């Protein structure tokens, strides 16, 4: 018995090293957010182009879709617009979640909706418009709830409003196939 007691440090160490070993080979990009397989957080956000219209999580239900976090200020987001537009033309439903960068009121920066709308319209007219519509998250509440670390990030949400996948970085023809498969599975259901 006493003999076994002295093996405890060794056993604990072996347990620890197994974690270290698997940690070494896991890609942080493949580990989804803590929200995968959970309901999309509740929100009530205006449509960017029609700010009088408020949208909620429930209103988006009914059909699977990609929720794409982006901004005109983000070069990688602009780069993926063309490919996302192609996808939309193939019938993939994509909803935009517009990421407004923090503004500092103390230094005279004001939120200017018309200017933003014009900026977005110009961008989408030039690069292609993949979005069914864009949610305007002016205070980044939903973005915060989703644990977004940067743009672009994309969430695959099923017809019941459950997040099924989380993709960090741009979507391009190389990394699209697994997402496409997940999406098709949800559509067929």
């Amino acid at each position, binding site marked *: 018995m006493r003999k076994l007691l*002295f093996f405890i440090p060794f056993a604990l160490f072996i347990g620890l090293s197994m974690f*270290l070993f698997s940690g070494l080979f*896991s890609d942080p990009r493949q580990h989804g957010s803590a929200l995968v397989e959970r309901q999309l957080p509740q929100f009530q956000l205006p449509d960017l182009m029609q700010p009088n219209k408020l949208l909620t999580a429930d209103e988006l239900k009914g059909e699977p879709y990609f929720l794409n976090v982006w901004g005109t200020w983000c070069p990688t987001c602009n780069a993926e617009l063309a490919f996302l537009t192609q996808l939309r033309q193939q019938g993939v439903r994509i909803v935009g979640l517009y990421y407004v960068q923090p503004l500092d009121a103390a230094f005279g920066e004001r939120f200017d909706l018309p200017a933003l709308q014009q900026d977005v319209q110009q961008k989408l007219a030039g690069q292609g418009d993949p979005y069914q519509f864009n949610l305007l998250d002016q205070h980044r509440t939903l973005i915060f709830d989703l644990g977004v670390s940067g743009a672009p990030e994309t969430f695959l949400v099923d017809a019941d409003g459950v997040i099924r996948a989380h993709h960090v970085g741009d979507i391009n023809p190389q990394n699209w196939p697994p997402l496409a498969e997940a999406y098709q599975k949800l559509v067929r259901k």
Partner: protein
Amino acid sequence: MIPELGQLALTFALALSLLLAVVPLYGSFVANQRALLLAKPLAVGMFLLSAFAMACLMDAFLNSDFTVINVASNSSTTLPWYFKMTASFGSHEGSMLLWVTMLTLWTALVATFSKSLPLLMQGRILGVLGIICLGFIAFSLFMSNPFARSLPFYPVEGRDLNPLLQDFGMIVHPPMLYLGYVGFAVSFAFAIAALIGGKFDSTWARWARPWTLAAWMFLTMGIMLGSWWAYNELGWGGWWFWDPVENASFMPWLVGTALLHSLAVTEKRGTFKSWTVLLAIATFSLSLMGAFLVRSGVLVSVHSFATDPSRGLYLLVFFLLVVGGSLFLYALRMHAVRSQARYKLFSREVLLWGNNVFLLTATLVVFLGTMYPLFHKELGLGSISIGEPFFNQMFFYLAIPFSLLLGMGPWVRWKQQTLPPLLKPLTLVLLAALTLALGYLTLTQQLAANLALLGMLLGAWVGMSAIGEVWQRMQQLGGVSAGFGRLQASHWGMTIAHIGFAVLVIGVAMTKTLSIETDVRMKIGDTAALGGYEFKLLDVYELKGANYGGQAAEIAVTEQGAPIAQLHAEKRFYPIQKTVMTEAAVHARLSRDLFVALGEEMPGPSWSVRVYVKPFVRWIWLGGLLMALGGLIALLDKRYRRRSEPSATPEQQQEPVNA
């Protein structure tokens, strides 16, 4: 050609480390004296070659030899010469070579200063160190070669050193920290040598003590300098961030502190034997784990070096072999050892046991806080992060009983202590602590039932108790003037280190509770008031440095009209790395820091300026400095320099003995 010489020297060092790992250990098993005698020259040779390789790397940096990839990525011609030198250990490759140099330095020191040890032990200790050196030299040479060339196509200008690292703190912080980290390899080697020999009398503990003390002292200095550097350089007035890499250095420190105290028990009383061996293994294992975490990218941190799974895999396998092997050996050998010493519930043994319990709980808190995100992720539960509040709260709860115990520890005797003789001095200490803490806070009108009060009380309790105990001891030794000299150096060391802890506790509590800050937008001539001080922006002008540009602000500080200081804050822009750095202006006094950081320029023209008043923040580093000083003084104790065979003379019963 000089980088090739460095590479060659490192290759020879590898060969010597291979011999050192094999020959003396072999000699210790077959009792071959010539094989054992070879250990010392091998160790010294290995160090000289590694140091030569490091010098070659420094030379390449000083001469801006951009054909060496490492130089091109981490230096530039515009860098001042002293930063060129420190850039040689600013990158992963360079810092690994520094690590190797430090490790071989310790090995050579052990070889030189172990004449009093039996030859068999010398051979085993140096052999174990040789195995560790072999692992790291091979890693440096094969997995992260600092001398790799980019010929024939090399850049004409380097990518410059990360501006964060262009600071005085960076010149001394890494060497100190690494000396501490790898210094624990020595106590580890002593423990393993004792395990191989199967002899666990108190002698191995006596031999290991000065080495552990030295490593601990350097690690204390290293951590303290790192904290000081972060405060000056990161520009947000913080001094500790619970960043995974900071934690990786803090864990060996905590366990190393426990080891120091446990070694005292093993040496003086011949008990806690298996526990001390385990602590010696754990301390170095945590150093190794720190190296793995920082260099493998398993944990993401601002300190991390570029990640590379093959490097991580190498370090992990090495870590597994060394730590797994030693823990396995521990399990095989240690269960047969039993301690015979007897002690009562109220005795120094039990109080030191309490010290170990709290220090290890603290280690566990840091360990879980650092590793929990990894466990969580690998168990498929998603990514999470653990922040400052968790650590702060846990350390708050741990610090209270720990400090109470620490205030009592030095008064209590070995074996058993009765309460009555302690009542009077401890009541006096308590009264002195209450008077001091309440008195100071009342006089400065900051008395409130908060963390500052608690920290002041605990700090005063520990500090007063340490001073009182030394006072009493000197009285016993024949008065203050006579006792001052007669008291052992190690006792002074302990007292100063404990006072250092008290100073640290006060600093942390006061800074956490009473710091105030404000963000203001200022035009030239504007004044901002904070904490009774007025900060007037006198002037902002363009800055032109050797490898940076930017703006500098002159700020006059007054207190009720009386001038205090003129501060000079900078916002630097480093064009090669395209980074903006804040050089905060700090006016430091023992009772408070005034900290001004210059922000962005706004139309107007005006500037955003961040101002902090941080009471007692200096005490945090002063506390660390005192702890390290205590370690140094204890190291000067005469008995560590005894030439004769220690086990030959019966152990003197030296009351008072220190912990």
